[in-house]
């Protein structure tokens, strides 16, 4: 071995190199306060190692970025841990940078002859922040996409060159493949290579000038190896332990909520979609202070953004660069220490303010606004109304304004938290769909969400149906029904065509109520009369058979097992419906009855039936002239001039039927719940509706 080392040494001088690297003199002995630089080098090394491994899977394009990160996170052995370490170590680096900078300034290690090294350190800090900024976009998820849009738009406010610079960074006029390829080239190539170059210079100059220490030294001098190396290694171990803890934190956060998937490592939002409103956009927590800072420039117009995003941050960075020169004066060092403390306190305050603004609804009691709400609804922020309501009483007006502001802050926070929740639902759904049997199509994961009834159904319903219909589940026990129900002019379609819904519909107590025909012209119609006068006299068991048979027509996925089990009763119910003295007096049902007087019950509630009804309720299969205000959303077969396209109508129909892809475990749970609910189903005379606290049979299947 010695001969081999001798041979190598004679050719490379490795012994001298090792000696120089390991036996640097540490005046005053090894100390914990010297570890920050080493932990930063360690953190960067971890980022390089994990980054290379991620690179082997990552594919930067608008159709493959999210998809490849999903694959790393959910399909690759240990991928979640690899990505988690990379994600949290990046955050640790920012904290370590701040600690290192503070230590250098407090110790005066930026003063002569170390000025150049301090400047190199500041350049390294910019590079690390640049790595964080570019890395945030690479998963191409909603939060990264929208946060990066803001960041790149801010570049555009730079005078003269801003627009061109923005176009160069974005890789064109619009965000897309080239935004990703450019950010990836920066993140994995240009910035790390620059970092290595500046780091070599930084360490070389550090070695040249040695450690800055206080005189007289408290302890005897020692060498870098092994004393300081041990302390550095322990500090690196602590950093790694924190990062690993953050990766596996779900293990320590108690029982997960049912139906909420546990996220190990780093989160992955829903795929980026420029047409999808995303109200939860925020930068990474260490850029929140800049985000909050921009809000301070209300009313400044164009100059506000320039000042807040470019001039003032640039001036602060300029001041940091001037520190070695300022430090030459007698009071300069104290000024610098004061400056860094004020800057970090300012950053801390703005970060806290941003978090407080977003999350205050979590710790604010909504009840405190109960009395105020009707007044706010009446007056809002309207000067005239406020003045008139308080008869010009300045004190009361000021009090109202204060309360109004407090409520507005609460409401904004509440909306943000709801947006975060909705974003999480969407992200979990995207992952669920990508993990499904059909995997991700070539057009990318964003199309999975665009074609998903569970995600698109509620949106389309809210936009096109909710001005008349509601979709309200039964309230929990003891709760009041939603006030929306009384305002609605068309039936509540929650659980449409399932057994519970039809049980209520065929009940004399409910058919003319707010869940069914209450708000429509049909409240006075023949069907209501028939249910009240005739059906109420039937044997409850026969009504139940009709409910089961009609509901089975819909072939609802959540009821498949129950329908199979009750086939005998369903057959009997079909016979009752088809009897010419019963339903087929007005309705058509299979071969029995005629079209024209009332909606066709053949295939009632199926996808095809619902699409037909939504497309044209005036069709002879449905209400013809008796249709009450429901528009025909797709009257023209050629599609021209239709209010909705066939794809959107299909999504609404699927959503109303609860027909969407479910993961296998949820599918099994739905079947069990449906069977249980069916076994516990109340008799028809006492149907569950949302005015009486009871869950419909298929409730567990719905989200």
């Amino acid at each position: 071995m010695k001969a081999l080392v001798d041979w190598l040494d004679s050719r490379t001088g490795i012994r001298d190199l090792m000696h120089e690297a390991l036996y640097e003199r540490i005046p005053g002995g090894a100390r914990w306060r010297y570890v920050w630089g080493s932990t930063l080098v360690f953190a960067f090394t971890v980022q390089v190692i994990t980054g290379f491994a991620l690179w082997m899977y990552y594919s930067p394009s608008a159709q493959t970025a999210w998809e490849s990160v999903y694959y790393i996170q959910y399909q690759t052995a240990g991928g979640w841990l690899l990505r988690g370490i990379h994600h949290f170590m990046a955050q640790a680096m920012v904290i370590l940078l701040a600690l290192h900078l503070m230590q250098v300034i407090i110790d005066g290690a930026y003063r002569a002859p170390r000025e150049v090294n301090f400047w190199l350190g500041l350049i390294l800090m910019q590079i690390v922040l640049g790595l964080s900024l570019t890395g945030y976009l690479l998963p191409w998820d909603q939060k990264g996409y929208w946060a990066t849009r803001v960041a790149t738009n801010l570049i555009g406010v730079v005078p003269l060159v801003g627009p061109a610079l923005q176009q160069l960074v974005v890789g064109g006029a619009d965000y897309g493949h080239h935004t990703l390829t450019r950010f990836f080239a920066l993140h994995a190539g240009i910035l790390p290579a620059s970092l290595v170059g500046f780091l070599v210079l930084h360490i070389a100059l550090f070695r040249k000038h040695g450690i800055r220490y206080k005189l007289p030294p408290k302890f005897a001098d020692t060498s870098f190896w092994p004393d300081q190396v041990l302390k550095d290694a322990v500090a690196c171990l602590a950093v790694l332990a924190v990062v690993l803890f953050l990766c596996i934190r779900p293990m320590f956060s108690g029982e997960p909520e049912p139906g909420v998937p546990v996220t190990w490592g780093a989160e992955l939002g829903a795929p980026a979609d420029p047409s999808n409103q995303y109200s939860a956009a925020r930068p990474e927590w260490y850029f929140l202070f800049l985000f909050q800072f921009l809000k301070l420039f209300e009313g400044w117009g164009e100059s506000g953004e320039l000042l807040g995003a470019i001039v003032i941050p640039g001036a602060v960075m300029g001041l940091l660069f001037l520190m070695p020169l300022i430090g030459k004066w007698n009071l300069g060092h104290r000024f610098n220490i004061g400056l860094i403390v004020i800057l970090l306190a300012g950053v801390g305050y703005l970060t806290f303010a941003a978090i407080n603004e977003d999350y205050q609804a979590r710790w604010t009691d909504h009840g405190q606004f109960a009395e105020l709400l009707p007044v706010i609804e009446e007056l809002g922020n309207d000067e005239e109304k406020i003045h008139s309501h308080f008869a010009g009483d300045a004190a009361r007006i000021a009090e109202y304004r204060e309360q109004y502001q407090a409520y507005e802050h609460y409401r904004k926070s509440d909306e943000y938290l709801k947006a975060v929740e909705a974003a999480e639902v969407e992200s979990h759904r995207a992952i669920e769909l990508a993990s499904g049997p059909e995997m991700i199509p070539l057009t990318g994961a964003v199309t999975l969400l665009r074609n998903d009834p569970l995600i698109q159904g509620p949106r389309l319903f809210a936009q096109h149906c909710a001005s008349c219909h509601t979709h309200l589940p039964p309230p929990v026990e003891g709760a009041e029904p939603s006030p929306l129900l009384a305002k609605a002019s068309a039936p509540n379609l929650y659980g449409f065509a399932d057994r519970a819904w039809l049980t209520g519909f065929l009940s004399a107590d409910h058919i003319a109520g707010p869940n069914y025909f209450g708000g429509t012209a049909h409240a006075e119609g023949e069907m209501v009369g028939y249910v009240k006068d005739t059906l109420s006299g039937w044997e409850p068991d026969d009504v139940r058979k009709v409910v089961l048979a009609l509901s089975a027509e819909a072939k609802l996925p959540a009821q498949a097992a129950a329908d199979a089990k009750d086939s005998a009763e369903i057959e009997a119910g079909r016979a009752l419906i088809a009897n010419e003295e019963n339903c087929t007096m007005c309705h058509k049902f299979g071969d029995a009855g005629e079209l024209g007087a009332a909606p066709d019950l053949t295939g009632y509630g199926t996808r095809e039936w619902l699409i037909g009804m939504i497309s044209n309720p005036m069709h002879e299969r449905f209400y013809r002239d008796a249709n009450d205000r429901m528009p025909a959303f797709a009257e023209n077969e050629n599609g021209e001039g239709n209010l909705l396209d066939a794809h959107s109508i299909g999504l609404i129909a699927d959503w109303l039927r609860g027909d969407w892809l479910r993961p296998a475990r949820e599918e099994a749970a739905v079947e069990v719940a449906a069977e249980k609910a069916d076994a516990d189903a109340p008799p028809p005379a006492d149907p569950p509706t949302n005015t009486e606290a009871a869950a419909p049979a298929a409730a567990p299947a719905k989200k």
Partner: protein
Amino acid sequence: MAKPSQPAVKPGDDAQERRNFFTKVAAVVIGGFVALIPAATGLAVFLDPLRKKSKAGEMLPIAPLGAVPDDGIPRQFPVVAEHVDAWTQSKQPIGAVYIRRLPGQEKPECLSATCPHAGCFVAYDKPTDTFKCPCHNSSFAVDGAIIEPSPSPRAMDSLESEIVGGEILVKYENFYTGKAEKIVKL
């Protein structure tokens, strides 16, 4: 014993100095040239996005007129267009707009859903009948006018629209954010 090194050029040896001068010039020129070619090529490709123009600005069909009742309430619609993204072309949503019609009016008013402050997606708040940006708290009246004080330097961006054969067409454009003036991104 090693010979002491001799200076490369003897003082006063003008011919040798002249030769060295040309050697230096040649080394700088050739070295610079070999570095310049790949650097210039790389720079040209790097600057290529400056040549690219946005396809936005065409009149695009958004929704049938019937989808926007004349009740003054803005409705959000995706803007779907043939979108060329570098090497791919597909029909997909490229943004979103708000459209409303005032009572008794056929002509719709159309606003871009992009906040003119920093580019976030502006949300319509039904209870207050205003638009609110979820990022930096910019607020706008239902007609897009700025509600002061606001970090936004201008009102929401109105978009040109027309009705053709019962269909609302909108000239969808992107504008630079953070500017008091509405400047189209080309």
